[in-house]
């Protein structure tokens, strides 16, 4: 009885939607293979397009091994107009998206992930749910070319500042010693 009440009173909704619309999304290229050196940044261009029949809002993301990489999308979110029928490649109304990836410092290793474009409804639409399309990326990362590539910029700057300060102190001490100067605390009576 309780279950029936749950069903009658509660509609278990995944999503709310308009009655007549289809959502479609595509990505070109469908897969990318590349080789990067550690800490190398490279841009990849994708075209995202809409194979449905209404405008959709698309959002970019990365998954799997690439999820934690330093990545920037230009743009990250955008509106897509439907492709005219019949669909064709390259798409007519597609949005060019530049995915800027920076390889992490790593021993030689293959990273696999997906550049994902998720399609939702445009603002103001009650169409819910999301479809997504993913372009497979396989990137082989090589070892760093220089030993300092293992260091981050922050570490280099911090190290330089500390070393410079130590250096200045040494020079100061040297000059003071030469001029027979001494540094000390004096009690003021």
């Amino acid at each position: 009885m309780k279950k029936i009440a749950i069903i009658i009173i509660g509609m278990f909704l995944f999503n709310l939607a308009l009655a007549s619309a289809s959502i479609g999304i595509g990505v070109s290229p469908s897969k990318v293979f590349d080789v990067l050196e550690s800490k190398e940044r490279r841009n990849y261009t994708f075209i995202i397009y809409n194979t449905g029949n209404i405008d959709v809002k698309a959002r970019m993301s990365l998954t799997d091994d690439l999820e934690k990489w330093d990545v920037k999308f230009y743009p990250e979110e955008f509106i897509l107009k439907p492709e005219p029928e019949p669909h064709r490649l390259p798409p007519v109304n597609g949005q060019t998206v530049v995915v800027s990836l920076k390889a992490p410092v790593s021993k030689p290793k293959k990273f696999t992930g997906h550049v994902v474009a998720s399609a939702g409804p445009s603002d103001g639409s009650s169409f819910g749910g999301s479809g997504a399309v993913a372009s497979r990326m396989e990137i082989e990362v090589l070892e760093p070319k220089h030993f300092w590539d293992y260091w981050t910029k922050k570490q280099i700057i911090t190290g330089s500042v500390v070393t410079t300060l130590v250096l200045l102190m040494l020079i100061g001490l040297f000059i003071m010693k030469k001029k027979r100067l001494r540094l000390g605390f004096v009690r003021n009576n």
Partner: protein
Amino acid sequence: MQKKGFVTILTLFVLFLVLGLLIGYFFTSDSGIGKITGAATSTVGNFTANVVSGIACTWSNAALNVSFGGGLAQSLTQGAVYNASKNYEGYIGGGLQILGHNWTLYNVTADSTNTDSVNITMSGRHLQSGANILGITNVTWMSNQTNGNASVASGSQEGHNFTYRGNTTLFEGFNLTLVADSDPKLILRLRNFSNQLTAGSTVWYRFWLMVPGSQVQATYAGNYTQTCTAALT
């Protein structure tokens, strides 16, 4: 005098070390300001080929709009399992559905321009109502590539549970085509999936919701995402 020389050498050493590091970092790394670029030219005949690849999927209007509660699923022995509202195009109940007369409105089509076959995965989040949660594992689905009726010969419409990944609220996606499904009941269910959905092909599917006996009465809402990916060849 010896001490003075030592300090001078040490100072110079540290100075050169720091300078060397900075110059090396900024002038010789590929991303640095000293990157050298160039181009080579040659005079040979050229072939030009612009190869474009792409994949796209299109979902029916119902496929991203799933609601439950319209009626009990037929021929089930598990207890309170309910059809999604478009499982049988609005037709709920009766014996005809197992004969394939009522097709589901949930489908996804691989675009005819696709240059690769695609796999489709699905992941979802718990249905929630305030603090009350109706676990996503209570939602089951079943798909069929050959026609719009996913019912099986035995009449059972029992699908396959979403599987929980454990460390996040997101659930592990799986192929609608279920190549990796280790469920021993799979064969018995006679599901007709293909691992690689070719360009222009459509997959139909149905959803069911099982409501546990202890579930708190409320209106629950959640969401899921279906993702198309180029199949590995």
